[in-house]
């Protein structure tokens, strides 16, 4: 196996077999080095890390329980209590603690975003490998299905899925992943197809390796880099999509739920008296999306230095 491994241009740069610059360092390591030197990437990574930490530790960090409407009595039609000693950011219009809502909002964004991207990636990758790895009729059929999926605007896809499954978080997750499937399917297929004609694959085939072990053992690892980049960028879109769908009223039927998109939509009614109710969740969405985008772009540049512009 070792002799065969030597044929595979391992790592993210492998597809083109380009030298990565640093001598004696594997492509993943040199990508890591480039990533660490990219300030925008570091900012992105820090934001993502903070976001994940906040989401994971929300029950510890949050001063109260979410979506309680505990202090609803303090909310009047014309005013929402602002910051105070008990409530650092004040209350939301349903009488829950705003800070708590924001922290738990990160939690639901992360869970829905990650799960949906994972599902979308898995399903898309499966289709892509089927199409690109086997080719022929399978490729044609799979890609027609993907074409059909692509021909439906993602919001529409999401709305239909959500409408079928009813109003809960699962429907949002599936809705978002449905929109991601074609992206990952196309990406993997293209990557596999590009490699299929390359000399190292031909060489492996001439050595009598079975197609499946070539695809799984040699070609797939080379597609890992682009997939990783796309997944990170997709997480950014997923965070925005989660918010957009809950903004449209999909997801949890409870209007007081701790979701950034829903917080934004309810804040609109009091935009003139309490604009901060809209500002905080909106900023939270934008900053999180920015973090994933910066990280994704930096990963892309680190894994494929030629693409940097």
């Amino acid at each position: 196996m070792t002799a065969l491994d030597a044929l595979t241009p391992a790592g993210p740069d492998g597809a083109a077999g380009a030298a990565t610059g640093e001598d004696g360092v594997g492509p993943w390591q040199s990508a890591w080095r480039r990533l660490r030197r990219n300030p925008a990437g570091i900012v992105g990574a820090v934001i993502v890390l903070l976001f994940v930490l906040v989401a994971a530790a929300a029950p510890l960090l949050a001063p109260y329980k979410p979506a309680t409407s505990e202090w609803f009595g303090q909310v009047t039609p014309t005013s929402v209590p602002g910051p105070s000693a008990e409530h650092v950011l004040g209350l939301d219009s349903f009488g829950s603690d705003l800070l708590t809502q924001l922290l738990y909002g990160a939690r639901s964004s992360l869970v829905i975003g990650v799960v949906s991207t994972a599902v979308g990636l898995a399903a898309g990758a499966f289709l892509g490998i089927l199409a690109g790895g086997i080719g022929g009729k399978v490729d044609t059929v799979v890609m027609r299905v993907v074409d059909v999926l692509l021909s439906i605007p993602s919001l529409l896809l999401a709305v239909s899925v959500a409408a079928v499954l009813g109003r809960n978080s699962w429907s949002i997750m599936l809705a978002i992943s449905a929109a991601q499937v074609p992206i990952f399917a196309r990406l993997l297929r293209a990557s596999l197809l590009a490699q299929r004609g390359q000399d190292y694959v031909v060489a492996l085939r001439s050595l009598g390796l079975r197609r499946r072990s070539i695809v799984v053992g040699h070609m797939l690892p080379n597609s890992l880099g682009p997939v990783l980049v796309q997944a990170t960028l997709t997480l950014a879109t997923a965070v925005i999509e989660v918010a957009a769908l809950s903004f449209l009223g999909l997801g949890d039927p409870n209007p007081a739920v701790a979701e950034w998109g829903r917080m934004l939509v309810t804040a609109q009614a009091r935009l003139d008296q309490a604009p901060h109710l809209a500002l905080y969740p909106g900023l939270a969405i934008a900053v999180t999306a920015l973090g994933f985008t910066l990280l994704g772009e930096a990963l892309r540049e680190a894994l494929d230095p030629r693409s940097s512009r």
Partner: protein
Amino acid sequence: MLTLVVRRLGLLVVVLFGLSLLLFAWVRALPGDPARALLGEKATPAGIAEVTRRYGFDQPIWQQYLTYLGRLLHGDFGSSINTGEPVVKTFTERFPATIELSVAALLLAIVVGIPLGYLAARRRGGWLDNLVVGGSLLGVVVPVFFLAVILKYVLAIELGWFPTSGRQNARIDATHITNFYVLDGLLTREWDASWDAVLHLVLPALALGSIPLAIIVRITRASVLDVLGDDHVRTAQAKGLPRSVISRRHVLRNALLPVSTTLGLQAGALLSGAVLTETVFSINGIGSYLFDAVTQLDYPVLQGFILFIAVVYALVNLVVDVSYGFIDPRVRVS
């Protein structure tokens, strides 16, 4: 070119067929009596009997599907549970508002985006370039509905420069011919009405335009940088052509080809964004119609919406692809 059109129309038929099957299965898959589901909470025994008969829910399932398909082909998309209005009628009334908004947003994005992208590429690394690159990143990560809320708060509520919601001031008694309010004002020479509609359009278009603007700027910039490095630009310089001719005929023209293809891909994002923007500015387009349908699970409306948008989306992309063929000689021949 013709084969492309035929193939794409063929694909559209397949998509619509598949969609109709899915939508049919969807209503059948709803828990309980489909007639009750279609009628929603207002179901009465008489109503259920009527719907069951009209939609043929008592017939074999394949026949039901054929009936459904037949009704679709006759343009009958059903009626809203909430309002009882036929879906198609509401759509035709509301769609102009959405188109007006989308077109305004896209125009804004093109008019601002292409020159900005071009200038950024010409002065690569300069302050404008950095601003454009950073700004386009913001355009991607700031959700359109959040931008809409900010614009509404700052420019409409706080500063009062623009109206906060709607398409036209209710006090203006405007005549509506096409339901494109700006156009209507021009047609009827009611300049005030037209101008008022434009004022109402500014903020939503700004918010919605941020999506295509960010993308157009990025692609124009990258594309111009690509073309500037091309050999044929050097040939043009070696010919001694004036700078303006080189910029226009040899750089911009070539660079706009990839930009024009992405415009078609924007249609979906634009539509999704329009739905969100309309809810913020209370514009009676299909966005708010969809919003109501989703929150009240108005199945006939959702079904109709999905089919309708799939058709519009496919047609827009077809038109873009065909026009691309006219712009790029390499595509035209092959």
